[in-house]
Every structure is written in structure tokens, then in C-alpha cells.
């Protein structure tokens, strides 16, 4: 008998029978991940309450002002967009959606879970796309609920001074849609930056800086500077919510409505495309 340590008899390995790889399985998987974190529903609930509350506060301020001015309550009023969609609430929503969008990927990198995920799904680009799709869907639902809620609450308050408008009023629907989509736009920008940066604190800081601080650096009095400013999501949102035409006498440049919609599309698209391109090349 020969020494056979190098070639012992082996049973045949179990055969691999595999169902087709389906993208919707990845969506379901990311959805399980999203809803199995207790912080997700808490953050969403608190943000919703805060943003709707800020609309109530803004509307109450105008409610009191209208009482003091003694203005005729019979006269029909125009929509007061920044009562329904006050900056205090919606800039906060941008910050929260951007950060949570970033955290969905950064938490995988910081814990190392991304390696477990990548061994399970070696198609890395598909994982990023699935995360982006689930993030976009979740924040579109939340954003719509918040935008609708803050509109209804603010108008209910203003109705006390007969200053409320119905949802069919001109300009209301555009403001509502722009405010609802602000959340998924920012969440996707955060997700893209999260994949690029991977480090929690740095990512959240970059998201806050990019979304909120950067636009204030570029004034609207110079053409080139105004162009950059108009390319920012927060400027786009303001322009879409604002229901009065730009003042022709003003020295400042004003963003256009179609241009602002393009900003809404391009930012998340570029963020996610960059993220997909980078994960394919980089070591996990």
C-alpha cells in the first residue's frame, strides 16, 4: 500500500444548484436591512414631526400678523409657500435625509458588514443600485407624507384667517412635489458621498457642507457665481417652491424652473453613478 496522504479518496462535493440572480431579491434584502434597524423609524418619526411642526410655527406667525394688520378677511389670498414649506423645516429635512442616506452605506463600511455583503453578492454595483432604489423609495414616501402634512397643517391654521388655499391653487402642486422630492434627492446624494468617503463623521460633515453651506458661498450677483448657486439642490428647491415670478428689477440672477428640475435629476444621478463606478474598482 502506498502512502496516499496527498490524494485521499473524497466524496464528491455537493452540486451547486442556483436560481437566477434577481435584482428584486437584492431590493428585498436591502429593505430587510433598512427596517431591521430601530433607529430608522425613530429618525423618520421625529423628522416628520419636526418639519410639520415648523410649518405650523411659520403659519402661526402669519396668522398672528394677519390679525394685527387688520386686513380684510374677505379678500382672497395667495398661497404663502414658505408657511407650508419653511426653510427651517426643509433644510433640516435635507440634512437628515442626506445623513441617513449616507449612513445606510457608511454603517456597512465602518462595521465591516460590507465584506459579508460582498461575499454574498459579488456584483457590487448591483448592491449599490439596490440600496439607492430602496433609499429613494423610502424617502419619496416619507417626503410625500411630510410635504402633504406640512401643507395641510399650515393651511388649516391660515384658514382661521381665511388665508388658506386648496391644493388645487396655482403653484401649490409644484411646491408640494419639489418639497416631497427634496428628501430622496438629498438621501441619494448622501448615499453617493457615503460610498466615496466611507468614513462616518467625514461623510456626514461633507453631506452637510455640500447641501447647506456650499450654496451660501456663491452669491447671485455675479453670473458665474449665480450659475453655481443655481446648480445647488437647496436653490433649486427654493425656486420650485416660490410661486412668484422673478423680479425684473432685481440685480440678482434667478434660477429657472426647468433648470431647477434638472438639478433635482442630475445630482442624485451623478452621485449614484460615481458610487457604482467606484465600488467596481476599489478593494472592499
Amino acid at each position, binding site marked *: 500500500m502506498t502512502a496516499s496522504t496527498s490524494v*485521499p479518496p473524497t466524496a464528491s462535493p455537493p452540486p451547486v444548484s442556483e436560481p437566477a*440572480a434577481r435584482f428584486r431579491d437584492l431590493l428585498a434584502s436591502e429593505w430587510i*436591512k433598512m427596517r431591521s434597524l430601530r433607529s430608522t423609524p425613530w429618525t423618520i418619526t421625529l423628522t416628520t414631526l419636526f418639519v410639520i411642526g415648523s410649518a405650523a410655527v411659520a403659519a402661526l406667525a402669519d396668522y398672528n400678523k394677519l390679525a394685527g394688520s387688520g386686513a380684510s378677511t374677505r379678500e382672497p389670498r395667495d398661497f404663502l409657500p414658505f408657511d407650508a414649506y419653511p426653510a427651517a423645516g426643509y433644510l433640516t429635512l435635507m440634512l437628515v435625509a442626506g445623513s441617513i442616506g449616507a449612513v445606510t452605506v457608511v454603517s456597512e463600511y465602518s462595521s465591516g458588514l460590507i465584506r459579508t455583503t460582498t461575499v454574498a453578492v459579488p456584483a457590487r454595483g448591483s448592491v449599490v443600485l439596490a440600496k439607492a432604489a430602496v433609499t429613494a423609495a423610502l424617502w419619496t414616501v416619507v417626503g410625500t407624507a411630510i410635504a402633504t402634512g406640512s401643507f395641510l397643517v399650515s393651511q388649516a391654521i391660515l384658514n382661521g384667517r381665511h388665508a388658506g388655499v386648496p391644493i388645487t391653487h396655482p403653484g401649490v402642486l409644484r411646491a408640494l412635489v419639489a418639497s416631497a422630492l427634496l428628501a430622496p434627492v438629498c438621501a441619494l446624494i448622501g448615499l453617493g458621498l457615503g460610498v466615496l468617503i466611507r468614513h462616518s463623521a467625514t461623510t456626514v460633515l461633507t453631506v452637510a457642507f455640500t447641501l447647506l453651506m456650499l450654496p451660501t458661498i456663491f452669491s447671485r450677483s455675479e453670473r458665474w457665481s449665480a450659475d453655481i448657486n443655481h446648480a445647488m439642490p437647496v436653490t433649486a428647491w427654493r425656486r420650485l417652491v416660490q410661486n412668484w415670478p422673478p423680479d425684473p428689477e432685481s440685480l440678482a440672477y434667478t434660477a429657472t424652473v426647468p433648470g431647477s428640475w434638472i438639478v433635482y435629476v442630475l445630482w442624485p444621478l451623478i452621485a449614484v453613478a460615481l458610487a457604482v463606478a467606484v465600488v467596481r474598482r476599489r478593494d472592499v
Partner: protein
Amino acid sequence: MIEVNELTKRYGDKTAVDRLSFTVHPGRVTGFLGPNGAGKTTTLRMILGLDAPTGGATTVSGVRFRGHPRGLRHVGALLDANQVHGGRSAAAHLSALARSNGIPPRRVDEVLREVGLADAATRRIGGFSLGMKQRLGIATALLGDPPVLMFDEPVNGMDPEGVLWMRRLFRRLADEGRTVFLSSHLMSEMENTADQLVVIGRGRLIAAESVRDFAARSTRLSVVVGTPLAAELAAVLTAAGASVEPEGSAGAEKLAVTGLPADRIGALALKNRIPLNELTTRTASLEEAFMELTADSVEYLAGEPR
């Protein structure tokens, strides 16, 4: 079957893995040994497609692992038990992974039961001990019922009962015809668990052979002989070409003999009418063989494994 061919990984000037080649066969437990920083984890990560090699290639069952759209049915891997999100429950963690690979949800309960975590299924992973996280990592690896399993330092943080359980599990997986590849720096664990060894040092291959062959490489293989006529026997053995070291205490003298097998020593003693009261072959432990071979890995560079 895992095949690694001329695999190289450089980080700047530092070469973590240097033209490494070896094959891990199915039906056996293969240990992957090396001192800290030898490049074990980097090699495993390249096999799993997490890191791109600088040079060379690696395949699992003949296919580059990264080419699979879904991985759990091909390879089960535990790289680091802490690579989980502490905020999720064990069941949620496994459910998300199972779902991504189209694995039925009942499989989650099965693997949790198999690793003994059924009672902890709904608890947050953040509250798990390292041993429990290792069990969860093994459950993750088993989820897709894969033909190839890879574990990086699996016994870390396990209690003795857990180590025993794991050892039996690895044996069973290999007996089922699967490829089982374990990295460890715990030599004693490998001695009890592995059939084959792949030993690396400074990113280079030192040995790829059976555990028994590896242990036999040690120069410290010796035979202990007890005799009342120690001086006479020492002279006889030295004359026959052995090197002899005195051992034991006065009145119970022993000799540690290297260079002659036990049967030759016995025959020489009989021929010279020297009575023996002990004749024991002392095999070097895997630990000793390992220390010796990795002490200067460059020296053992020459031999190619195949």
C-alpha cells in the same frame, strides 16, 4: 477546490503576498498557517474577490469568485465575526443575506439551530459575545449550503465546548465532500483539526503538505531511552552515528537520541546486552515544527509545492 496561482498583492512598497501558489482539495480540512502579518487574511480576501490581486489569479471550483452574481451557494466564508451590524438581530442579519441570494427563509432557522443560536435569534448582535458572533459567522457561511467553506481564525473567543463543536463541524463538512479551509495561528488546534496544511511566512509559501509530513520536518524528532547502563548505551549509539543527550535524573537516567529510529536503538541495545526500561519516540509537536520553519521563512523559500 480552491486554486491559488502565483498570487501577489503589493501595497505600495510592501509586498503582502508574494507569488503564492497552492491548491486546497475537497473532502479534507486544510489549515492555513502563518505568523501574524504573513498574509493569510489578504490571501483569503483575494480568493473571495474582495481585494484585486496585483498579480496572479485565484479560482474557486475553477471559476473566479468575483464573476458570480451571487456568492453564498458557491462559498461560505467567515472572515471576521465582527463584520456585522450590531443594531440588527441575528435573524434579521441572516434573513437579509439569505434573501439577497434567493435562499428560502426557513434556512435561516435551520442554520441558527445548527450553530446553537436559536434562542438568541431575535436578540441584537451588538449584545453578543465574541463566541456567539463566531457562531453567527459560521451560520452565515452555512446559509447557502456551499461546497467550499473558508474560515479566518474561527476558534477565536470560543469556549472549550465551542471549540470541540467547531472541530466536529469542520470534520463533518469535509466528510460531506466539501472543501474546508481554515486559517489559524493556533498550531495545537490545527493538529487536532486539519488533515492538510498550507504554511506561509512573509507572504510566501513555506509548506503545502499533510499535517504528519509537516510535523516530521522538524529536526527535533527524537527517541527517549531509559536504561541503567546509560554511559554504555550512549557510547554504542554514538558509534552508530546518533547524537545523544543525557536526560532525566540520577538513578533514572535517560538518553534523548536523535538520528536513529526506535527499532534500531532497540536492536543495538539487544546486541550489546544493555537492558532498556523505556523506549519512546517523541514526535515534535506541530507547534515546534511551525516555529522552526517560520523562524526564517526565506530559508524555506526554495521548494515549490507542486
